[in-house]
């Protein structure tokens, strides 16, 4: 793979080894300028390890990596100068005020004090924290900290922002505020890399995404492509009396394209969910509950890995 001109991140066979095991196991990536690129995967999939290599905070064990056209091994500070990172743990300065957190972070990038203060003011508005400027970070709620961490990552006006689980632990309203701000950044042409456990978030936000599992990429594309290419269009979720499952599966064999048996329910996939449900009723086996819905990234993940995204 040769790096392309608009590639912000280019990786091939990128690997990270911790104590003999590959946390990231030979992945290829091509992230283009201006897109929102997602990493979806369960705990321990290697998302954070990948982010840290891209952010030049962790040397790669093998493979190739170019970020902003440069090699992290030799140009760490230079690359980081153009990156904003929102780490999985906020790593804010809890003894300092919200405003000071922004100011000192800007100073790390070598920005002039006056300039940093002006930018901090704007970012406080952006993150809806203007009325908290002099509050100690210790006294902020989790959602406010997250917003501050995002605001902080923008102080250097980076061309690439890496967000490691930006909305984990937030209430729905706070999540939507974060999404809104991320859309705003995208419209300004900033490249965003996001990791998440939430398939609705990935579907909403990402132009393209990869599904990671045990250090490998098991699927990639736009959310629509991934769904269309991996699973049938619709799903019927059934909860059944214990013991009824085998008989039903035999009876449905000709009506469904694939079946996933989960701990508490079975998922039947096909192009027409209602037709499947009719076939179920025709068998005379009555499910405890049933639900017909469109296939999502969650189903993609299940199909690709045989496991659920949030375990």
């Amino acid at each position: 793979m040769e790096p392309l001109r608009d590639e912000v991140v280019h990786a091939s066979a990128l690997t990270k080894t911790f104590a003999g095991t590959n946390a990231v196991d030979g992945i290829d990536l091509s992230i283009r300028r201006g897109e929102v690129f997602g990493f979806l995967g369960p705990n321990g999939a290697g998302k954070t390890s990948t982010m840290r290599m891209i952010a030049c905070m962790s040397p790669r064990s093998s493979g190739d990596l170019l970020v902003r056209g440069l090699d992290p091994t030799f140009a760490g500070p230079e690359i980081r100068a153009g990156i904003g990172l929102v780490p999985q743990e906020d790593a804010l300065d809890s003894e300092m005020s919200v405003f000071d957190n922004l100011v000192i972070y800007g100073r790390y990038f070598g920005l002039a004090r006056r300039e940093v203060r002006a930018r901090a003011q704007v970012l406080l508005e952006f993150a809806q924290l203007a009325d908290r400027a002099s509050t100690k970070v210790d006294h902020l709620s989790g959602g406010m900290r997250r917003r501050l961490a995002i605001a902080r990552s923008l102080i250097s006006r980076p061309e690439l922002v890496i967000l490691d689980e930006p909305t984990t632990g937030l209430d729905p309203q706070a999540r939507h505020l974060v999404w809104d701000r991320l859309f705003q950044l995208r419209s300004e042409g900033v490249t965003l890399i996001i990791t998440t456990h939430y398939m609705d978030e990935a579907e909403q936000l990402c132009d393209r995404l990869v599904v990671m599992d045990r250090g490998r990429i098991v699927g990639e594309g736009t959310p629509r492509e991934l769904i269309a290419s991996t699973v049938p269009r619709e799903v019927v979720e059934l909860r059944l009396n214990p013991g009824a499952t085998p008989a039903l599966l035999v009876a449905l064999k000709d009506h469904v394209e694939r079946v996933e048996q989960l701990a508490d329910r079975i998922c039947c996939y096909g192009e027409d969910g209602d037709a499947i449900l009719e076939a179920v009723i025709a068998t005379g086996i009555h499910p405890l509950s049933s639900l017909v819905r469109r296939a999502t990234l969650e189903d993609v993940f299940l199909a690709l890995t045989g496991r659920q995204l949030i375990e």
Partner: protein
Amino acid sequence: MIAILRALPMGPTVTLSWRRSAHVIERNVMNYRRNWFYLVSGFFEPLFYLLAVGAGVGRLVGTVQTSGHSVSYAAFVAPGLLASAAMNGAIFDATYNFFFKLKVERTYEAMLATPLSVMDVAIGELGWTLVRGMLYAGGFLAIMAVFGDCHSYDAMLCLPAAMLITLAFAAIGLALTSYMSQWQHLGTVALAVLPLFLFSGTFYGLDAYPGWLQEVVRCSPLYQGVALLRALALGHLSALLLIHVLYLVLLILFGLFVVSRRLARVLTP
């Protein structure tokens, strides 16, 4: 010094920039803006010792002999207290505060996502302890001068010498702390500092000890600092003082080498 630091075998990812290190100092200054009281309080401890021991006990003791000269006890003990002030100025930041930032606050992880490098962080923290140590040592030296405990203009050399002591304790403190994983480990710091303070020739000369113990105390970094400062404050200059200087410089380089390696391992695995 720059050349030596740049030559330390750190691998290609580690770079050093004085300007970037300065922002680490700046962060600490901003952090202490709200807590300036704690900063100032550290200045009074050696001052109280100087009053109690130098002036108080000094009246009982009268004069003492040091390197063949007879001096007042206050003038004898003051440089020892100056060395301790330099040590104390360094040690709290290099241990407790450093541990807090490293393990609890993850301050350095945030820093390392910016252009700052591990070496910038190590040098920056060292620089901050130097700022703090100089505040204490400079103030104390001024008071010594007022009390007449500085016997020649050579005493001005006490300031750079106190800088060396501060840096040496800071570097060793940072290096040791980078290996600590729990708060309890920090308890060993107090356990080490108090005997150093009491037994490193601060309050009385080495001749109070039997021969073998004298050699042990000579190895103590604080003794090296005390001996250097005492000679400078009393104007007893000799080329042998360079041995103390060399000892302290080696300690600084060793500590810095260890801490930057450790930080690279811990923070950028």
